[in-house]
């Protein structure tokens, strides 16, 4: 497994280099953390946070270097432990200058194929996937509709109360996602904008973001987007996420002012993708859990 892992890392680096992307290794320990309601960062006493992705560092360097960049390394997420989750995992994240969301999808397809995965299969919008799978329009359904749908599929948690984001996450994670990517990696685009932070919204329909995810064998493999460049909107959305976090009693890490300052200088138009390397390796080698491809998986280290 170590040799297969090394070969995959080498292939990914070759693919990135072939596309003219520069490898950088930004700091994993940061004084601030991304403001997202569903992302818990590991706090390091007196020093800040271990980053859940290299996004902020890469974007600050995009402003400085004005060239396409990538980072391949470990990232950290508090409390994520399971068959397909490890609190420390390996991520490949890249940003291509001038790219659209579709460019990012195409690059991902090339990278996955180079790694040995089947060619990208169908591509549908989030809305179409929900309509096809659940006969439910995720953009117009009422909270009652969403709850009824969850009940019908037997996935409603006890005493469930929640906003649209809650019900959509529930239906996506437990009902829709397990059925995605059975014929090879497939793409779902235009996720609802309710919890979008650093991504651009769709020009024609602001209810959805220019964000996509790639699923293979029911597992989420990658997440990508056309990136937001407007620092004012970025701050508003970060504050919105902070407010949600406060309301839900979650930790409230400080907003990353250095990222906002860099964006104020001018983040170039770009599209980015984050790819879960351990998941990719597990799926490529037919392993049923991450622990079989991570040298020292949590918690049995």
């Amino acid at each position: 497994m170590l040799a297969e892992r090394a070969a995959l890392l080498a292939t990914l680096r070759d693919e990135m280099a072939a596309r003219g992307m520069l490898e950088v290794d930004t700091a994993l320990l940061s004084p601030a953390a991304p403001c997202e309601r569903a992302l818990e960062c590991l706090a390091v006493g007196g020093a800040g946070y271990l980053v859940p992705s290299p996004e902020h560092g890469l974007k600050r360097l995009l402003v400085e270097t004005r060239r396409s960049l990538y980072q391949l390394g470990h990232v950290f997420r508090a409390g994520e432990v399971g068959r397909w989750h490890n609190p420390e995992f390996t991520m490949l994240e890249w940003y291509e200058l001038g790219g659209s969301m579709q460019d990012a999808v195409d690059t991902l397809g090339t990278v996955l194929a180079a790694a040995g995965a089947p060619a990208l299969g169908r591509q549908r919008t989030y809305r179409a996937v929900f309509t096809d799978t659940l006969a439910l329009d995720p953009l117009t359904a009422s909270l009652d509709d969403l709850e009824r749908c969850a009940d019908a599929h037997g996935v409603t948690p006890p005493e469930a109360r929640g906003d649209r984001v809650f019900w959509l996450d529930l239906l996506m994670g437990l009902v829709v996602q397990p059925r995605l990517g059975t014929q090879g990696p497939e793409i779902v685009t235009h996720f609802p904008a309710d919890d979008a932070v650093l991504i651009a919204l769709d020009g024609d329909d602001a209810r959805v973001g220019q964000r996509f995810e790639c699923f293979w064998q029911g597992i989420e493999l990658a997440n990508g987007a056309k990136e937001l460049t407007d620092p004012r909107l970025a701050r508003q959305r970060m504050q919105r996420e902070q407010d949600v976090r406060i309301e839900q009693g979650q930790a409230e890490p400080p907003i990353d002012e250095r990222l906002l300052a860099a964006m104020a200088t001018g983040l170039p138009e770009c599209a980015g993708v984050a790819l879960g390397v351990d998941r990719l390796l597990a799926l490529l080698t037919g392993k049923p859990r991450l622990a079989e491809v991570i040298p020292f998986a949590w918690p049995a280290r």
Partner: protein
Amino acid sequence: MAQYSTQQFKGGLKIILDGDPYSIVENEFVKPGKGQAFSRVKVRNLKTGRTIERTFKSGDSVEAADVFNLDLQFLYHDGEFYHFMDPASFEQYQASEAAVGDAAKWIQAEDKCDVTLWNGVPLQVDAPNFLISRVTQTDPGVRGNTSSGGTKPATLETGAVVQVPLFIEEGELLRVDTRKAEYVSRASES
């Protein structure tokens, strides 16, 4: 009441759902990269044996079930209840027909059984893996066909019926695998 949070969920954990005791068979952490985390658990009802699936929000808590196992000695069946004793404390327990279930035909007095107790009441009785019991009834084997794989039914003292080789006769002591309801060998008188 003791509680378990979803972070503590793992196979074998005993919890209360809708007033019934359940054992967690499997726990899957589900979380979209940009979304809320959930626990999807497969749980087995310890009263009915039925397995169902449930979803919890990550961080939710459920009541712990006071369920534990004891090695109890089977004493007797009074026609309605099966009586057991803890050989360490001499405390006695009575188990219903439902709790004993299939184990009834695999146990005899003095056998040590693995008994699952919920709030101190037997919920499930597992017979010992092997039973040594005497054949009370079996037809004579056909001559000349003694060990070539032919079998015939034999009734044991406990009431169980197992397939045995043709050479087994009434009154013999047999060793039987209770999990597979299979003849293992003849047993010697001790």
